[in-house]
C-alpha cells in the first residue's frame, strides 16, 4: 500500500500520458465534481471530447472552473496529461493566485500499456506516435518536476497505482475545531510584569485558566521591552501545556533570523532582545529559537468564526497558505513605501473588510482598541507606556492593564485611531442583486432594480448612514371585511391572530401624520462614541429623508430625557408618527388631495343644479340626480377626511410627536420587547411635544374584550381617527404578521377615493398576499438592522438591511393596501 498525503484544501495535478489511467485513478479517489478533466472541457466547448483543435478554448474553460473552485476553497483535481512544464506551470500559477498548495501525482506507466489501453477505445483514434511523444515529454519532466514548485510530487509506478491510498492533511492554520472560549492578548514586547498582571486579571493561575479558557497571543512577544526572555518563558510554557496558542509576529520572525546568524538590521528594539537573551543559558535560547521558528502565520478558530493573525488578514487569505499570505499576516498590507518616520505605509485593509469571521490582530499601536468592520487591533502600545489589552471571546469584552512605565520611546507618537471605521460605505455593499442574511435563519433577496431605485433615493435624500440605523417596514391591512359599508374592520384582525395562536393583542391608536424615526443621543460625546458622528440626533422619514425642522431634535432630546436613566443608555432610537400630516406632506396634500377636493366641490354642485333644473322641466333624470347628490356628499366627506389631519404650524409650535416603539438603545434591540413594555416605558414621557398613544389590550378568547375594542375603534374612526394597529403583545415569530392596520371608513376615502363606498363590492376583491409577504420581510430586515446595531456590528452590516427595506419599498404593490 502506498499512502499519498495531500492538503485538505489544495490543487492536485495529475500527470501522465494518454492511457496512463488518470481518469480511473481520479474516479477511484475523488468525487466526480472534484475532478475537472481536459476531455470534459473539450466536450463542453466542442461537443467532442477528442477534438484536439478545441484544446486552447477547452483549457480556458478548465482554468476558469479550477480558479473559481479554488477561490471558493474547494479541493480540485485536474485530470489532463500535464506532461509538459508549460501546462503544469499554468496550473501552479493558478494555485498561487488563490494561495492554495499544489501537489502533483504522476502516473508513470510503460508506453506499451498506454498504447494498448488507447487501442481498445475507438474514440481515441490518434496514432501511437502521439503517446510516444507524450512519453518523451514525461521522461524529460520527471527529472526536474520536483523543482516545478509543487509542495510535493507523488510518483506512482506499476502496482503502486492500484494500491495507492489518498490521505488528507489538515492545514497548519486550521484550528477550527477549537471553540474557546479565548482570551486574545495584544502585543507584549517584553513587558513581562504587565503580562503577569493581565493574566491574573483574566483569571489565569500559573498559566492555566480554571474555566478552561485558552489564551491566544497575537505575536510580537519580543523586542523593545525589559524582559523578553521572561515573556517567552511564560508563553512557551502555556503553549506547551496547551493553555495558549501563539501566532508569529514580525519581531519573532526577525529575532529568529538574527539568532540564526543571518544578517539583519538591528533596530526597533531588537538589540534589547539580543542583549537579554545573551544573558540566558544556551538551552533556553535554543528552546526559544525553536519555539519562534515554529510559530505559524495565522489561525482559524471556532469553526472559522475567529481568525488571529499578527497584522490582520483579509478574508481571501483566511486558511490559505502562500508567501504573500504569510507576509500579509506578519506585516500587513504594505505599499512598500515608508512614511516620514521611516515606518512602512500600510493600507487600511480593515476598512474594506467585509468577511463574517472576526479578525483579531496587533502590530499597529494605538491608544484604544477599536472595532473596525468586525476586526480589532489589540496593540495598545504597552511598551510605549500605553496599556496591554486582551479581548475576551466570544464575550467581546476588552480587559486592559496600564504600562508600569514607558519602556521604549516610540518613533511615532501613538494616535487615537489606527484606522477609524469610516462613515463611508462602499457601493458594493448595496448595489446589484443581494441576499441579506437574517440572524434567526433565512435570507432575504433584494432585486437589482429595487436596489437601483433605493440607491437613488438614499443618495440624494437620506441622512448620513451613521444615523440611518432603521427604516420602518410596511404594514398589511386585515382580510377584507364583509360587513355592510366596511372594507376593513377589527374582527378580521382579531380572527387572524386568534387563528395563529396569539392570546393577547394590543390595539394602538393609529396617528395620522408622517412616520418619523428619531435617533437621539444624550450628548454630542455619546453621538461621537456610538455613531462616530458629530451632532446630537436626527429625525427622518420613512425614506430616510430629514424632516428639516429647526430645533426638532433638541426638543425631542429634552422630551425623552427620562429614558436615559430608565434604559440605562445615552442614545435611543424611536419609531414615531409626526403630527400634523400637513407638516411634512403639505405639498402632497395640496397636489393630490386638496386638488381633488377642490375639483369635486366645484363640479358636483353644478352638476346637481343642472340635473335639478332638468328634473324641474319634467325630464327623467331621477337616478342620475340621486347619484350626483351622493357623490356631492362623498366629496364633502373626503374633503373633511384629509382636512382633519391638517393644522397650521409655526416653527415647532403645533408639531407633536407620537412615539409608539423604542427601537434600540445601548446594547439592546428593544424592538423585540413586548408592546406592553414599550407603551409603559414611553408612558414615562411627559412633555408638550409628545402625543401619547391611546391603546386597549384584548384577550382574544374574550368576546367582550373584542367587542369593547371594536366599539372603541368605531368611535375613534367616526370622530375622524385614522384607525388602529393590532399587534400581538409579545413579538411573534415565523409567518405571523407583526401588526395589522385597521383603517376607518372615512379615512379610507383618502386612500380609495371619495366614492369608494359606492363600489365596495368591486373593491373587496383585493389581493393581500404580496403586501403581507413584504410586511414580513421588511419587518425581519428592520429587526435585523437593530440587532446588528445593538450588537455593535460594523456600519456596512447595519446599512445592508436598512437599505434593503428601502429597496423592498420600491417593489410594486397595490398602494391602497
Amino acid at each position, binding site marked *: 500500500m502506498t499512502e499519498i498525503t495531500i492538503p485538505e484544501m489544495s490543487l492536485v495535478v495529475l500527470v501522465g500520458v494518454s492511457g496512463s489511467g488518470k481518469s480511473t485513478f481520479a474516479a477511484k479517489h475523488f468525487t466526480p465534481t472534484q475532478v475537472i478533466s481536459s476531455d470534459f472541457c473539450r466536450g463542453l466547448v466542442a461537443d467532442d471530447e477528442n477534438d484536439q483543435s478545441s484544446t486552447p478554448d477547452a483549457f480556458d474553460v478548465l482554468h476558469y472552473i479550477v480558479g473559481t473552485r479554488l477561490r471558493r476553497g474547494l479541493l480540485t483535481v485536474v485530470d489532463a496529461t500535464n506532461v509538459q512544464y508549460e501546462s503544469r506551470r499554468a496550473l501552479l500559477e493558478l494555485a498561487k493566485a488563490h494561495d492554495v498548495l499544489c501537489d502533483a501525482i504522476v502516473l508513470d506507466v510503460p508506453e506499451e500499456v498506454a498504447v494498448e489501453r488507447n487501442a481498445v477505445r475507438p474514440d481515441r483514434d490518434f496514432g501511437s506516435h502521439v503517446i510516444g511523444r507524450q512519453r518523451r515529454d514525461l521522461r524529460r519532466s520527471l527529472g526536474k518536476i520536483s523543482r516545478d514548485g509543487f509542495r510535493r510530487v507523488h510518483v506512482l509506478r506499476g502496482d503502486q497505482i492500484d494500491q495507492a491510498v489518498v490521505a488528507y492533511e489538515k492545514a497548519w492554520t486550521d484550528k477550527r475545531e477549537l471553540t474557546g472560549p479565548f482570551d486574545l492578548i495584544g502585543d507584549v514586547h517584553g513587558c513581562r510584569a504587565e503580562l503577569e498582571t493581565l493574566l491574573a486579571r483574566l483569571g489565569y493561575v500559573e498559566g492555566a485558566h480554571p474555566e478552561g479558557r485558552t489564551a491566544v497571543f497575537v505575536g510580537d512577544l519580543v523586542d523593545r521591552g525589559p524582559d523578553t526572555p521572561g515573556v517567552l518563558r511564560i508563553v512557551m510554557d502555556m503553549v506547551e501545556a496547551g493553555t495558549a496558542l501563539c501566532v508569529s509576529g514580525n519581531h519573532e520572525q526577525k529575532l529568529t533570523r538574527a539568532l540564526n546568524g543571518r544578517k539583519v538590521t538591528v533596530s526597533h528594539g531588537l538589540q534589547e532582545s539580543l542583549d537579554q537573551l545573551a544573558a540566558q543559558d544556551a538551552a533556553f535560547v535554543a528552546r526559544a529559537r525553536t519555539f519562534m521558528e515554529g510559530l505559524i502565520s495565522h489561525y482559524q478558530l471556532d469553526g472559522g468564526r475567529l481568525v488571529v493573525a499578527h497584522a490582520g488578514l483579509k478574508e481571501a487569505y483566511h486558511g490559505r497558505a502562500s508567501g504573500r499570505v504569510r507576509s500579509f499576516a506578519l506585516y500587513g498590507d504594505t505599499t512598500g513605501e515608508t512614511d516620514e518616520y521611516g515606518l512602512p505605509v500600510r493600507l487600511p485593509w480593515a476598512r474594506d473588510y467585509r468577511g463574517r469571521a472576526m479578525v483579531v490582530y496587533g502590530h499597529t499601536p494605538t491608544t484604544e482598541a477599536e472595532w473596525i468592520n468586525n476586526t480589532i487591533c489589540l496593540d495598545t502600545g504597552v511598551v510605549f507606556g500605553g496599556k496591554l489589552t486582551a479581548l475576551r471571546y466570544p464575550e467581546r469584552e476588552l480587559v486592559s492593564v496600564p504600562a508600569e512605565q514607558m519602556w521604549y520611546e516610540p518613533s511615532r507618537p501613538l494616535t487615537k485611531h489606527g484606522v477609524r471605521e*469610516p462613515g*463611508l*460605505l*462602499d*457601493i458594493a455593499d448595496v*448595489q446589484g442583486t443581494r441576499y441579506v442574511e437574517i440572524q434567526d435563519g433565512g435570507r432575504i433577496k433584494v432585486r437589482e432594480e*429595487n436596489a437601483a*431605485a433605493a*440607491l*437613488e*433615493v438614499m*443618495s*440624494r*435624500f437620506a*441622512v*448620513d448612514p451613521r444615523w440611518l440605523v432603521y427604516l420602518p417596514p410596511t404594514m398589511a391591512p386585515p382580510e377584507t371585511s364583509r360587513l355592510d359599508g366596511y372594507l376593513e374592520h377589527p374582527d378580521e384582525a382579531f380572527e387572524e391572530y386568534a387563528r395563529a395562536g396569539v392570546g393577547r393583542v394590543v390595539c394602538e391608536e393609529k396617528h395620522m401624520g*408622517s412616520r418619523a424615526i428619531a435617533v437621539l443621543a444624550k450628548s454630542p460625546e455619546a453621538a461621537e462614541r456610538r455613531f462616530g458622528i458629530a451632532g446630537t440626533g436626527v429625525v427622518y*422619514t420613512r*425614506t*430616510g*429623508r430629514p424632516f428639516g425642522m429647526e430645533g426638532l431634535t433638541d426638543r425631542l432630546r429634552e422630551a425623552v430625557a427620562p429614558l436615559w436613566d430608565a434604559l440605562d443608555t445615552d442614545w435611543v432610537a424611536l419609531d414615531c408618527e409626526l403630527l400634523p*400630516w400637513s407638516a411634512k*406632506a403639505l*405639498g*402632497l396634500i395640496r*397636489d*393630490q388631495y*386638496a*386638488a381633488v*377636493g*377642490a*375639483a*369635486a366641490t*366645484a*363640479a358636483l*354642485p*353644478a*352638476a346637481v343644479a*343642472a*340635473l335639478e*333644473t*332638468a328634473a324641474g322641466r319634467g*325630464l*327623467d333624470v331621477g337616478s*342620475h340626480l340621486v*347619484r350626483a347628490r351622493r357623490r356631492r356628499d362623498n*366629496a364633502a366627506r373626503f374633503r373633511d377626511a384629509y*382636512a382633519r389631519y*391638517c393644522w397650521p404650524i409655526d416653527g415647532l409650535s403645533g408639531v407633536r410627536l407620537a412615539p409608539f416603539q423604542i427601537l434600540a438603545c445601548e446594547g439592546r434591540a428593544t424592538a423585540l420587547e413586548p408592546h406592553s413594555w414599550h407603551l409603559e416605558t414611553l408612558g414615562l414621557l411627559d412633555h408638550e411635544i409628545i402625543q401619547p398613544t391611546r391603546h386597549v389590550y384584548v384577550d382574544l378568547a374574550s368576546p367582550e374584550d373584542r367587542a369593547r375594542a371594536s366599539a372603541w375603534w368605531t368611535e375613534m374612526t367616526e370622530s375622524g381617527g385614522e384607525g388602529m394597529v393590532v399587534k400581538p403583545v409579545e413579538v411573534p415569530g415565523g409567518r405571523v404578521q407583526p401588526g395589522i392596520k385597521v383603517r376607518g371608513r372615512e379615512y379610507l376615502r*383618502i*386612500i*380609495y*377615493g371619495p*366614492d369608494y363606498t359606492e363600489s365596495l363590492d*368591486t373593491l373587496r376583491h383585493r389581493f393581500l398576499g404580496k403586501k403581507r409577504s413584504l410586511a414580513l420581510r421588511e419587518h425581519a430586515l428592520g429587526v435585523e438592522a437593530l440587532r446588528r446595531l445593538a450588537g455593535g456590528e460594523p456600519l456596512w452590516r447595519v446599512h445592508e438591511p436598512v437599505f434593503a427595506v*428601502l429597496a423592498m419599498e*420600491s417593489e*410594486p404593490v*397595490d*398602494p391602497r393596501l
Partner: protein
Amino acid sequence: MLLTISTTSRPATDLGYLLHKHPDRVQEFAQSIGQAWVFYPEATDERCTAALMLDVDPIRLVRSRDRSAPDFSLGQYVNDRPYAASSLLAVAMADVFRTARSGRCDARPDLAAGPMPLELTLPALRCRGGAELAHRLFEPLGWQVSAEAVPLDEQFPEWGESRYVRLTLTGEVRLADALNHLYVLLPVLDDAKHYWMAPDEVDKLIRAGEGWLAAHPDRALIARRYLGRRTTLTRTALAQLAELGDDTEEALEPPVEEEAAVEPAEETAKKTPLNVARREAVVAVLDELGARSVLDLGCGSGQLVGALLARPQFGRIGATDVSAHALALAARKLRLDRMPEAKLARLTLFQSSLTYRDSRFAGYDAAVLMEVVEHVDPPRLDALERVVFGDARPAHVIVTTPNSEYNVHYEFLTGMRHPDHRFEWTRSDFTGWAAAVCAEYGYSVEFRPVGDDDPDLGPATQMGVFHRD
C-alpha cells in the same frame, strides 16, 4: 364632470338639431372610461342649454391608464379625473357630438354654417397656467372669457388657489368651431403629465384646428402641450418612494437637464447658452490638461459625454449618475444601441452614487463634477469629497457650480436656479470650500469663469480646476 352649451338664438331649441340630440330626451353614451349622457336643463325658444355629463369610472380608468403612468402610486386612484374637465371630457365630447363637430346639419344647414350666440360653461376646468392662460387661449378665437380660480380649500386660505377655474365662454361663434376649440384646448389647458387619454396624433390636431389654429398667436404652445409631454420611461419605483416619504413625485424627479428655469433678462439670441458655454469650457480645460481618460460624475442625460466622445483624444470615458432614469435617457440620447463598436468601447456608462466609495471611479486622468455638488445635501458633502478626492484621487478634478451672486441677472428667478439645488454658493463660499478640500486631500486649485462674467458679481458659472499635489 360637466359641460353646458347654451344659446339664445331663436328658436333656441334648434340647438337640438345642431347637436343631433333631442332636447326632451336624456340620452346615454357608453364610453371606454365610463358613461356620458346629454340632457337639456332648459329648452325654451328664448334659451336652450344642453348639458354633457361624463361619469368616470375610476376603476376602468386605472385599467385604461397610459403606459407611462406610474403603475403603483396612489395618484392613480385618488385623482381629479372624475370631476375636472380635462382631456377625458374632450374625448367624450368628440365622440358624443361627432357630427356637430364636423359642422354638418341637414335640418338647419344655414344655422350650422354661421356664427351664433353661444355660452359654454365648465364649472371645474383643470387649467395649468391659471385663469390668465385661459384668457390668452380663448380670447383670440372670439370668446369673452370669464375664468374664476377655485380655491384649494376654503378652510385653509393660506394654501392659495387650485389649478381649476370656473370657465364661462360667451361669444358669436360657429358651433362646430366652438366644439373644436374645446376639443383641442381642454387637453392643452389640462397638460396633465399622467392619465393622458386623448389620442395625440398630429393629424387629429390639424383636422380639429382647421381654420383657426394656424392663426392663433399661441399656436406653438398649443401644439407643444397638445402633443403631450410623454415620458416613455416609467419611473414607477421613484413615484412610489415619493409617496411613501410624503413627497410629491416632482420633488424627487432627477435633475436631468440642468439649466436655470428662467433665462437671464439680457440674454440675447446671439449669446451662447450657458450650458453650451459650460460644456465647452470643461472640454477646453480637459484638452489643456492633456487628459486621456475622463470620468463624468453625475452625467445626467449625457451632454458632456457626447462632446467627449466626439473628440478621439479622450480614449476612455466613464459616465455615471445615481439616477437610473438619467442613465437610460443618456443611453438613448447618445444612441448607444447604434454606436460603432470602436466608439462604444471608449465609454463605460454605469449607475453609482457619490456618497458611496466605488472602485470603478479609480484610474481616470480627470474627473468632472459639472453642476453636481449643489445637488448634494451640505451634511453629505464630506462623503462626496472623500469619495472623489480621497478615494478615487484622479490627477485632476473639474468642479462647476452656479455663482449665486450672479442670480440677480435672472429677472424672474425666485430662490435657486433649480428646484433640486440644496445650496448655491457665492464666489467666496466656493473658494472657501475648495481650499478646505485641497488642505484635506492634497490638491491645489485654480478658478476660471464660465459664461457671462460680471465685473462686480462674477461669472454665471464658477469653475474650480483641482490638481493633485
